[in-house]
């Protein structure tokens, strides 16, 4: 019982990070149908910016988080303008390879400037933990921060998408880009805005993972990036609640698998789930099936 609660706590923290990255994937996919492979690397860049701010500028946790989010959203917009916009009319496979080239570029540029070694993220939060049930369940203060920040960011995202004009434009563009354009929506602006928000969330996830695991390296983005994509597909790609559900489910499943002695297989489990979900419910847990028309 205690162990189950402990795993729940760990699973939620891991799931929060997946969910934050998955949100960016899902929003971009929802609007321009592109699997943005560079998204995982934006998360890596976010972690490095957080690292630089806390180590070299001695900033606190919250200022670093906000500056990191601002900078990654800028990077996201620049990537969209430079790399994806010229290829918007091209085929899927071209766009996908472009995304991969952007991903490689970010990884190895970062490696060129910072070196391939793993770096230690400084302790920016006080090292305090709460124990429950006579100390058999330990909840680190970091877990609470991660969950709270994730929930706040998700609430903010939900507000933007549901209540603002820009959010309405995003939903319209995602539903039918051409019709949205005919209704006077500036589609380019909407796409840039989507990249900005998605990248900011990834940047936040990067800083959070930095404080959670304390280590960062230039290639840290690729596997979590893929897994966050799995999470997005699991929940139903293109759906914001789906990404959250998928992220938390994947975090929980991975924690449960590694706790039960399967830690070496935990990455395989994520992809196995992906294949099973794709076969049974290709549109994800929350997705609706659409009939194909000739």
């Amino acid at each position, binding site marked *: 019982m205690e162990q189950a609660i402990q795993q729940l706590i760990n699973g939620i923290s891991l799931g929060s990070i997946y969910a934050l990255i998955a949100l960016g994937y899902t929003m971009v996919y929802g609007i321009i149908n592109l699997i943005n492979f560079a998204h995982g690397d934006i998360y890596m860049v976010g972690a490095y910016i957080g690292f630089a701010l806390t180590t070299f500028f001695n900033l606190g946790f919250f200022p670093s988080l906000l500056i990191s989010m601002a900078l990654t959203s800028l990077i996201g917009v620049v990537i969209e303008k430079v790399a994806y916009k010229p290829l918007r009319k*091209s085929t899927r496979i071209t766009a996908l*390879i*472009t995304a991969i*080239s952007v991903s490689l570029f970010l*990884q*190895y540029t970062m490696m060129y400037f910072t070196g391939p070694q793993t770096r230690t993220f400084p302790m920016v939060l006080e090292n305090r933990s709460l124990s429950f049930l006579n100390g058999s369940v330990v909840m680190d203060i970091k877990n609470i921060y991660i969950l709270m920040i994730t929930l706040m960011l998700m609430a903010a995202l939900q507000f933007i998408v549901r209540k603002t004009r820009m959010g309405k434009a995003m939903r319209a563009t995602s539903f039918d880009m051409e019709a949205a354009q005919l209704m006077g929506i500036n589609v380019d602006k909407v796409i840039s805005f989507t990249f900005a928000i998605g990248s900011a969330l990834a940047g936040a996830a990067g800083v959070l993972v930095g404080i959670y695991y304390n280590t960062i390296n230039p290639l840290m983005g690729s596997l979590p990036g893929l897994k966050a994509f799995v999470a997005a597909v699991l929940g139903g790609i293109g759906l914001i609640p789906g990404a959250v559900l998928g992220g938390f489910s994947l975090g929980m499943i991975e924690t449960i698998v590694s706790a039960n002695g399967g830690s070496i297989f935990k990455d395989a489990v994520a*992809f196995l789930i992906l*294949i099973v979900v794709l076969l049974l419910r*290709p549109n994800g847990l929350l997705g609706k099936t659409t009939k194909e028309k000739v």
Partner: protein
Amino acid sequence: MRVFNKGSIFKYIGIILFYAIFQVLLSTGVLDDYIELNIILICINIILALGLNLITGFTGQFSLGHAAFMSIGAYTSAIVTAKLGLPFFVGIMLSGITAALAGIVIGIPTLRLKGDYLAIATLGFGEIVKILALNIDYIGGAIGFNDIPQYTNWTWAYGMTVLAVVLIKNFLNSYKGRACIAIREDEIAAEAMGVNTTFYKVLAFAIGAFFAGIAGSLYANYFYFIKPDSFNFMKSIDILVIVVFGGLGSIAGSIIGAIVLSVISLLLQSVSDLRMIVYALVLFGIMLFRPAGLMGNQEFKIFKKGADANGSVKGQ
């Protein structure tokens, strides 16, 4: 198909002459070991790219897990030649067959998916194969498989490359190959015309996997040593890049793509720190300025002539 006619005899002579020239240059030591290594790598890449081109370029099924089949082939060959001590030919054939069986087993369920979903499912399959290989102690696990006998040489590599080109080209000129091309052009229309789409998709997948297995076998028996990480997601991407760079749906394109990209990566070795950055920029440049690849879906004159004689449809 007539095997011998005036045009084709020159082609056969050309193929044999090309082999003989390199064989002489390699055995007399004009071309050193380093060049031989790169030539064999180019052959392996050509075989991989041809297999993937059949799946992605000709049948239109988007696969991001091609390295997994190479991995299966490499490990099969390693077990057959190193652990069981059987001859290399058996290793190559068993590698191809095991990989093709894996292709069928994976293809039957996943090929119901379309586009991006299929890409992601195959990506997941590739990761699963890698993680399994990492955790099976019999084949060395994460440490890798050591002491594989070195059988691969120019003769084997070239022979297998020619075999792959000939078999895939003839497959595409057969009615089965045209069924595959029909699926790429319009799956629903193809189905309406009576093409059994599932069967042909799985068939293309199995043939592509077969050649990936052979390439894996050549790889394992050239480098003595294989480890699961050599066949990761990036390897699949490398193969895909060759195919797209050469031109989706062009056999000549895959060959040229493999050669050009290998040469580019060779030239970049002198700037090893910047290698991947330049590679990424080159990739981006190609996608931006030449998204259809070097050859588009065209073939060389020499390839075209043979195709016309058989009354083939050319890609379109």
